[in-house]
């Protein structure tokens, strides 16, 4: 129960206009957005954050681990809201982006606050039945100096971006859920391919 309270509070304090809504979806097949289907072998806390392009799922509660699911992001769409008053360039997806540019887009989102990012690997991969990308990375989060590991998969289909990115503390948590995330990535299906 505690994390159901803490997660909305954290995100609300982080600047969301309204507290997010936690939902705990059942195991099995889940439709994310209109076209992305994933299969879960366990329950994830599902956090709806208004204004976010991604759905956020978590096992331990945000900000400990965060599975970001981007489904059907359209050309020109911002990946995350820009802080009020900020003059920073928003992270915007363009359908013409190559995989390394999409990885760079995720990197820019993770480092806007001064966090550091180190790309470990970036390679072609299949995601959701489409030709796409896989990348691994390390982050040191500015706000609390926690060292994080991350993995991402994704593809562009009909000009829309489908991607999952999982990030969690390098110690304990990333390894605990990495296989589960890999299974989700491997079982993902994009409709209409």
């Amino acid at each position, binding site marked *: 129960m505690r994390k159901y309270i803490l997660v909305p509070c954290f995100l609300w304090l982080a600047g969301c206009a309204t507290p997010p809504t936690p939902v705990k979806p059942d195991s099995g097949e889940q439709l994310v957005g209109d076209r992305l289907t994933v299969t879960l072998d366990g329950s994830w806390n599902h956090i709806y954050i208004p204004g976010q392009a991604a759905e956020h799922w978590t096992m331990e509660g945000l900000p400990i681990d965060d599975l970001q699911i981007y489904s059907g992001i359209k050309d020109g769409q911002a990946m995350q809201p820009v802080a009020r008053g900020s*003059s920073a*360039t928003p992270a915007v997806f363009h359908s013409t982006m190559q995989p390394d540019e999409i990885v760079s887009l995720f990197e820019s989102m993770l480092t806007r606050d001064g966090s550091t*990012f180190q790309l470990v690997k*970036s390679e*072609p991969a299949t995601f959701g039945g489409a030709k796409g990308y896989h990348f691994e990375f390390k982050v040191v989060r*500015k706000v609390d100096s926690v060292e994080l590991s991350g993995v991402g998969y994704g593809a562009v289909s009909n000009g829309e971006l489908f991607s999952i990115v999982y990030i969690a503390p390098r110690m304990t948590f990333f390894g605990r859920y990495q296989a589960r995330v890999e299974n989700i990535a491997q079982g993902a299906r994009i409709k209409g391919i």
Partner: protein
Amino acid sequence: MNRRGFLALGCACGALLRPGLSRGDGAGWKPPPRFARPDIASDEGGLWALMDREETRLRRSPFRIKDRGLNDYIQGIACRLGGEHCPDIRVYLVRTPWFNASMAPNGMMQVWSGLMLRADNEAQLAAVLGHEIGHYLARHSVDQLRDAKSRTAFASVLGVVPGVGALAGLGVLGAGFSYTRDHEREADRIGVMLMNKAGYDASEAAKVWDNLLLELEARPGGNPSKNGFFASHPPAEERQSALAELARTMPGGTTNADIWREKTNAFRREWLEDEVKRGQREESVALLTRKIAAEPEQPDYLYFRGEVHRLRAGEGDYDAALADYEAASLEAGAPPELWRGMGTVYRARREIPEARASYRSYLDAAPKAPDAPMIKSYLEELGQ
């Protein structure tokens, strides 16, 4: 007063948000003797204790730049400025891409990488450190603590101001607004005097503001000191001109530009990467254009300006990016990533032979790059 407020008060922070310097008040100041640790039961003692704990946290931070040579060098600059207070000043270099330095009343000084990137020479860094030491020597944070307690106005200092966090974070914000204009003027005055006494060219202090103004003016919407929340503070121009006027009374001195470049050379690329990640495209172009004008043969500045143009991808940006990449490629020690950037631009323009050649050059220069498998797949798609 809560803990966060206390911390913000304790950290006397850098020049970005600070008000101006009045003319004619540069004489008659003598540095105080070294400070004794205050009684823990006093308000100042409590502030020191909290800063001590923050210093312990900072010492362990993964963002601390631990290179011994650079630390010794910057500590030496602080010591030249601090004089007999040198044993009490402990400098910590922090990898944070914004322009800032700060000093706490217990002697803990933070110097951010964004400041070191922007400094053109040792004297410019000394100008900012001297200002922070000025706050320390004049014990402004203690004045502010007592003033805030008496006025119970600290909530306004701590208010979370939307968007300002992107500049530097809450610590900077809190400290940036915690000093009065008089305190800032006094710190500027002391800082320039310390620069002069240490043998630095005091006119470099005003140049720090010249440079910062270039970036501020490049922002979409213009200089934030002229509008909105910042309107209550004197504009940066006023401060720049006041510092220049004061420096005219203290001619001579050195800049140590060559030593500065030599000492920071190994860190430049990492600091530039962090600068680009801030996502402040216009500011970054202004900064890099200034740097290129000063060092036209330094390929890092050319490459990273090319990156900013490529990422901005506005009208003419791809042409500008290619020009920068090509200019960088002609210089020794250019980053191999420039070839990847060129490949990306050429591919976006559907200039396939050029894209192929660029990607091949990237793989030749960085065969073990973490994204090499991805780039190889591009070559397969584009045809060998």
